[in-house]
């Protein structure tokens, strides 16, 4: 009853509201959608990663893998970057 009143007055604990679930699910799905939207994007990202890392080490570009990985609550950029050799420190 009290909860009902609180909701009616537009206050109270909203942490379990279905709209929060909607928003959270949308946030996650859109990260993926937006990345998928341009198939070239991941390729560009790979190239940029290689460029930056090449300053420090030699990368095996052919077997480089970059993916978006989503679990229930978060989205992560997962990269598997095989290193051929590391440069000597100057």
């Amino acid at each position: 009853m009290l909860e009902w009143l609180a909701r009616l007055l537009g206050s109270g604990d909203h942490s379990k509201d279905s709209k929060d679930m909607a928003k959270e699910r949308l946030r996650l799905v859109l990260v993926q959608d937006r990345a998928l939207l341009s198939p070239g994007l991941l390729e560009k990202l790979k190239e940029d990663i290689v460029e930056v890392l090449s300053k420090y080490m030699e990368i095996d570009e052919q077997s480089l893998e970059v993916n978006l990985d989503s679990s229930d609550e978060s989205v992560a950029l997962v990269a598997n970057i095989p290193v051929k050799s590391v440069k000597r420190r100057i």
Partner: protein
Amino acid sequence: MGKAIVITSGKGGVGKTTAAANIGTGLAQIGKKVCLVDADIGLRNLDVVMGLENRIVYDLIDVVEGYCRVRQAMIKDKRFDTLYLLPAAQTREKDAVNPDQMGKLITELKQDFDYVIIDCPAGIEQGFKNATSGADMAIVVTTPEVSAVRDADRIVGLLEAQELYDPYLVINRLRPDMVRKGDMMNTEDMIDILAIRLLGVVPDDESIIVSTNRGEPAVLDKRSQSGQAFRNIVRRLEGVEVPFMHLENNSMVQRFMRLIGIGGKS
């Protein structure tokens, strides 16, 4: 030279045709010269929402294929003589016209009208490309639901690919009672997610159905709340700063006042 605005969404049934009819009629109501273009080839609907279905002789495809001039296909509105409708073909396929032809047609219409309002079909295929190809700007319509917002987001990206940047958002069918209970995303939530500029919020409203039954857009009904929302949208398009309606966080007092007919800024 007028401005061509495409009304689009990705998902079907969210209110594109309703918005096109109301925004177009609303603009005519304030004296603008408006041409509504039904780009939903094969699923023509704007004519019935406008109450003009009995006057159609030629359609958009007839124009494109050269069977008639564009003036012959345009139907004059019953209420405003600055308002016209170019109906879609009902018995043809979406690929009966291509983006190039649509672009030329819209450019031609822009010579004679202040606004060309294009009602886009659902989907992201040829129909979408046709409807967007002549447009100068876009209005994305969504409802406060996960699937509709997701599709809207995708459309924003596809619009960019068509060089239509910075679209407007119209949130349709908002239910203040559900928002208050926390069972519907509010305006802020959706702006937060989509990150595009808000043009207006239209409540879920019986008067939309009644007005569609009659073929009289709700924007003409002074007492209709959704009509008020569309009148505000029209003024915002004209560059007037209109405060957004407080549909969502109404106090009980405000709700009571609306109930008895005092106030009701939409």
